[in-house]
């Protein structure tokens, strides 16, 4: 029900739907306020008993009023109606009820409550074991639950962002506003973040005055000044959700959830805020009292009831009652009276409760029961003067306030019990660089909060080396809090602690009786505090009950662990931008567009995309294209983009000595204009990477790495230069992206190059493993006579900006000569035919010795990995060594990953003699070929062994050969 003349929110009328029915609300007000304005009190069903539930709170801690917004793949479950703002066209649905919210079949669970207490699942669903996953779990999951996901791909946009500041102020209530103002006026870079759409905190929901005017007017004035300061950033709708090391804070901003879908806006943005200092002004959360049937729709926290009235102009009931243990809660009764709403009675547990002329006050009172199936209709009370029933549709309750200490505990600190406020307060120095001000550390009067905000900000500024400005404190209320402990009303029936998870006082007592006395055990046995509100409303009361049941004090009982996030964060926001292709950066070569134009399927190679093959008309399968491309290279000429290989430029007087130390073989004697194959080891003696290094000039080298290890090798070279050999004068730079490089391979490769180079290739100047500068259609480039195919071949490099043009020229000329472009599949076949290595073989557990390259390890110099590579165990003949494999029956499959066994031995793990690393169909030799590692392999050439792949169901007899299947003398590459 709306109350004329009350509320400070001026939003336009907006139509929204709840469970299919259309209602009118006001734009920008929480859905919970709009539902109450339309007298909707039943909003959801509880997790376990499917009890009818309404709205408990007015904040992000809401445990009951969870709804699903949106539709289909864009639907969002478990949205708190207290947080979701109304906009014209908003669709919301209730959850966990079937067929309807009012007539939920599963409410039968509530009748069986005696059997569904703490530990029910553990005790009931034990036998038979086979039923655990297939029968019990599906049933339990269907019966108990919250909203569901669509199962479809999430089409919504989310973002991630970073921010930096001197001082982060968390929460924009009285303390936070003063802290931000103090820091803002000092010139410090300030971020003020608040989870609400409008800043001001309790200033917006209370009727007290600041500076002799309404508190919200004062707050607006402060916000105007803050907004005018260039060094202050205001971040409304932004919840600081977690505290991390070195002043890093996670925060979730609601960007597009409060308005009609706009494709330009993300729904949410997850911020990482790095702050030199922070002040936590998170306020406090009012706690409910546990009494019989305290969970009916219409039973709410006292601050929420007056907040809906004062801020949104909505009365939560027509006849309100209040149950409290402190003076602060009496504001609710006074505010209701001021709005002309009937207050049917105030039940105060103390005998010192303030009296009133406007409503009856029942001292030493307690609520002992409630009635109303789908919403509260009356309560039963006991008090100093006897017992009675009171007709009421809204019971406001307050057991006092719990300071929001959550963020102070995220780095492991525990809060400290304060007997005076009967609450946990933040421990001193809980988070380095974070101070706490106001209600979050138990300062409950407005005057106290204002002063504390100034004081904590001033200390933070001092630590930052900034002078705090003098701030005049505004006049405001400084009323005492006055509270007597009240956690539960003893009696029969169920009194709820954790509303969402249906944990009652009885459950906690039972957990204690069954010896789950540790608070962490009690939590897990009862599920107390494990709902979406993470026990914000209930944990302290549950602790008090556990303390009582175990005969300990609350301080001694302790709290459970507080972990981020403070309030729910969607995984989509945390992973924003990382869906699909956004998961990793994409690197494209200069020939990418031309390859895609030719219909080449692109495959991932690390972050790079490379063409798999270049299909031609009439080719039905990839194998046909691949076989043709291999044939082109062996018979005419092929062109392949090899720009993805890492290129590292190494210069300096000590460059040669540096390479000698990095590579296992010697490079310092390499002459300018020559190229050498090098093998690089890790410190533990295993192979790190291989590749060629060209000597471009005196003290100037160009190293190539494999595509996969380019980053790793660059890091390794920096490590050697900076850590192991800092005395060497050498400069290292990655130039992978600077050069486009293409392999031109095949008997007609020189003919092709001659048609494009400004001067023909001089065979004398370019023998095998030579390099030098060339001019390619007027562009200065580099030519390398190297081969990864076994053919007479070159690699030609030009600055990357000419790559796309050169690629098209090369391919066109190759086609004239009866060749063309070839892709990764053909490249792999060509190298397997030649027994050349990739990271399939250099997989980190193999040595130069295993590869048959032991002779490359220089005995005349020190190099990385030398000591470890010399260990006897790495040089034993019984080690698995690189071999070639060829099927006895030509063309039989030799799948990679298959294991190798003696012909008659059972194919079990203990009998494995090795495994296959690479496999290909060789059109050149007309059979399948493979490379692999076999125990004592070099001594077993000619032997027939059995290859077994249990995964694919393959078994093939094959012959062990040397790794090089084609042109073992290497005449084709040299000639």
């Amino acid at each position, binding site marked *: 029900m709306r109350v004329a003349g009350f509320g400070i929110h001026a939003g336009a009328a907006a139509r929204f739907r709840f469970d299919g029915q259309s209602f009118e609300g006001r734009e920008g007000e929480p859905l919970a306020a709009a539902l109450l304005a339309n007298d909707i009190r039943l909003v959801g069903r509880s997790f376990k008993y499917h009890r009818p539930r309404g709205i408990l709170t007015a904040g992000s801690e809401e445990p009951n009023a969870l709804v699903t917004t949106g539709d289909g793949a864009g639907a969002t479950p478990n949205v708190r109606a207290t947080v979701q703002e109304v906009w014209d066209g908003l669709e919301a649905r209730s959850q966990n009820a079937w067929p309807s919210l009012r007539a939920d079949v599963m409410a039968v669970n509530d009748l069986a409550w005696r059997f569904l207490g703490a530990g029910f699942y553990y005790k009931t669903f034990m036998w038979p074991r086979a039923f655990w996953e297939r029968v019990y779990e599906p049933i339990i999951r269907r019966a108990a639950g919250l909203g569901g996901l669509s199962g479809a791909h999430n089409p919504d946009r989310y973002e991630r962002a970073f921010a930096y500041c001197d001082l982060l102020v968390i929460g924009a209530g009285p303390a936070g506003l003063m802290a931000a103002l103090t820091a803002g006026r000092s010139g410090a870079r300030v971020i003020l973040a608040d989870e609400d759409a409008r800043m001001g905190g309790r200033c917006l929901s209370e009727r007290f005055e600041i500076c002799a005017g309404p508190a919200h007017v004062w707050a607006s004035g402060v916000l105007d000044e803050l907004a005018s300061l260039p060094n202050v950033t205001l971040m409304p709708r932004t919840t600081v959700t977690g505290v991390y*090391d*070195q002043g*890093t804070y996670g925060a979730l901003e609601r960007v597009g959830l409060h308005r009609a879908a706009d494709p330009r806006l993300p729904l949410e943005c997850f911020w990482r805020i*790095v702050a030199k200092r922070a002040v936590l002004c998170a306020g406090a959360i009012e706690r409910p009292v546990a009494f019989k049937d305290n969970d009916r729709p219409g039973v709410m926290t006292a601050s929420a009831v007056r907040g809906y009235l004062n801020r949104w102009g909505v009365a939560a009931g027509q006849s309100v009652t209040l149950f409290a243990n402190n003076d602060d809660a009496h504001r609710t009764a006074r505010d209701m009276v001021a709005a002309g709403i009937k207050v049917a009675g105030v039940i105060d547990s103390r005998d010192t409760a303030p009296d009133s002329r406007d409503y009856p006050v029942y001292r030493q009172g307690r609520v002992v029961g409630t009635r109303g199936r789908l919403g509260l209709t009356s309560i039963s009370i006991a008090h100093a003067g006897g017992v009675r029933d009171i007709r009421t549709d809204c019971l406001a309750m307050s057991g006092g306030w719990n300071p929001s200490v959550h963020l102070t505990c995220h780095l492991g600190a525990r809060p400290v019990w304060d007997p005076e406020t009967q609450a946990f307060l933040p421990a001193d120095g809980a988070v*380095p660089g974070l101070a706490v001000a106001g209600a979050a550390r138990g300062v409950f009067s407005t005057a106290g909060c204002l002063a504390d905000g100034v004081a904590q900000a001033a200390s933070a500024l001092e630590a930052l080396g900034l002078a705090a400005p003098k701030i005049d404190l505004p006049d405001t209320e400084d009323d005492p809090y006055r509270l007597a402990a009240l956690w539960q009303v003893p009696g029969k029936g169920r009194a709820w602690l954790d509303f969402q998870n249906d944990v009652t006082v009885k459950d906690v007592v039972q957990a204690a009786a069954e010896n789950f006395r540790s608070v962490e055990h009690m939590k897990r046995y009862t599920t107390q505090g494990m709902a979406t509100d993470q026990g914000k409303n209930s944990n302290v009361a549950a602790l008090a009950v556990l303390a009582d049941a175990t005969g300990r004090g609350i301080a001694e009982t302790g709290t459970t662990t507080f972990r981020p996030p403070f309030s729910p964060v969607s995984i989509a926001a945390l992973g924003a931008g990382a869906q699909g292709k956004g998961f990793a950066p994409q690197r494209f070569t200069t020939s990418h567009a031309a390859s895609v134009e030719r219909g080449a399927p692109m495959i991932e190679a690390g972050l790079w995309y490379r063409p798999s093959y270049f299909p031609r008309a009439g080719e039905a399968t990839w194998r046909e294209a691949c076989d043709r491309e291999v044939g082109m290279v062996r018979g005419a000429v092929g062109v392949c983009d090899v720009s993805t290989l890492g290129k590292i430029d190494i210069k300096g007087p000590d460059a040669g000595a540096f390479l000698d130390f990095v590579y296992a073989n010697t490079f310092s004697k390499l002459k300018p204009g020559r190229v050498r194959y090098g093998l690089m080891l890790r410190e533990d003696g295993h192979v790190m990477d291989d590749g060629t290094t060209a000597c471009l000039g005196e003290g100037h080298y160009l190293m190539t790495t494999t595509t996969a290890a380019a980053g790793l090798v660059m890091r390794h070279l*920096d490590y050697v230069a900076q850590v192991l050999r*800092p005395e060497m004068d050498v400069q290292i730079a990655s130039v992978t992206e600077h050069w486009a490089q293409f392999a031109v391979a095949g008997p007609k490769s020189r003919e092709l190059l001659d048609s494009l180079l400004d001067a023909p290739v001089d065979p004398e100047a370019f023998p095998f493993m030579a390099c030098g500068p060339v001019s390619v259609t007027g562009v200065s480039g580099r030519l390398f006579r190297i081969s990864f195919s076994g053919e007479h071949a070159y690699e030609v490099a030009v600055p990357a900006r000419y790559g796309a043009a050169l690629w098209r020229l090369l391919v066109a000329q190759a086609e004239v000569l009866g060749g063309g472009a070839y892709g990764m599949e053909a490249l792999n076949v060509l190298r397997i035919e030649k027994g050349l290595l990739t990271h399939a073989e250099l997989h980190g557990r193999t040595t130069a010795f295993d590869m048959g390259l032991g002779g490359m390890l220089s005995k005349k110099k020190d190099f990385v990995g030398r000591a470890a590579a*010399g260990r006897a165990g790495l040089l034993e003949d019984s080690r698995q060594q690189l071999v070639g494999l060829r099927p006895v029956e030509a063309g039989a499959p030799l799948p990679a990953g298959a294991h190798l066994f003696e012909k008659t031995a059972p194919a079990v793990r203990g009998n494995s003699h090795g495994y296959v690393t690479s496999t290909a169909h060789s059109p050149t030799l007309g059979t399948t070929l493979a490379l692999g590692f076999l125990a004592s392999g070099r001594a077993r050439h000619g032997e027939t062994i059995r290859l077994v792949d249990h995964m694919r169901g393959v078994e093939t007899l094959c012959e062990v050969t040397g790794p090089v299947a084609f042109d073992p003398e290497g005449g084709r590459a040299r000639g």
Partner: protein
Amino acid sequence: MRIPCPHCGTRDLREFTYQGAALAQPEGDWSPDWDSYLHLRDNPAGETRDRWYHNPCGTWVVVTRDTVSHAVTGGIAAREAGA
């Protein structure tokens, strides 16, 4: 986690690659020192010095930090740190 790069200033953890404790590499042929250096690393509760690579600028940094409090107390270029 924030790590001070002597070249770029304090930067986010995600820009760094962790290597391990900042130990001096042994000299000479294989020995128990090598075994210890490669395979038997300490796991201290408290102050530790380890090497991190700052990927954007290519600087190896020796970082002093506390594995218990998570405090990061220093970061100097490995080139200057010595072994």
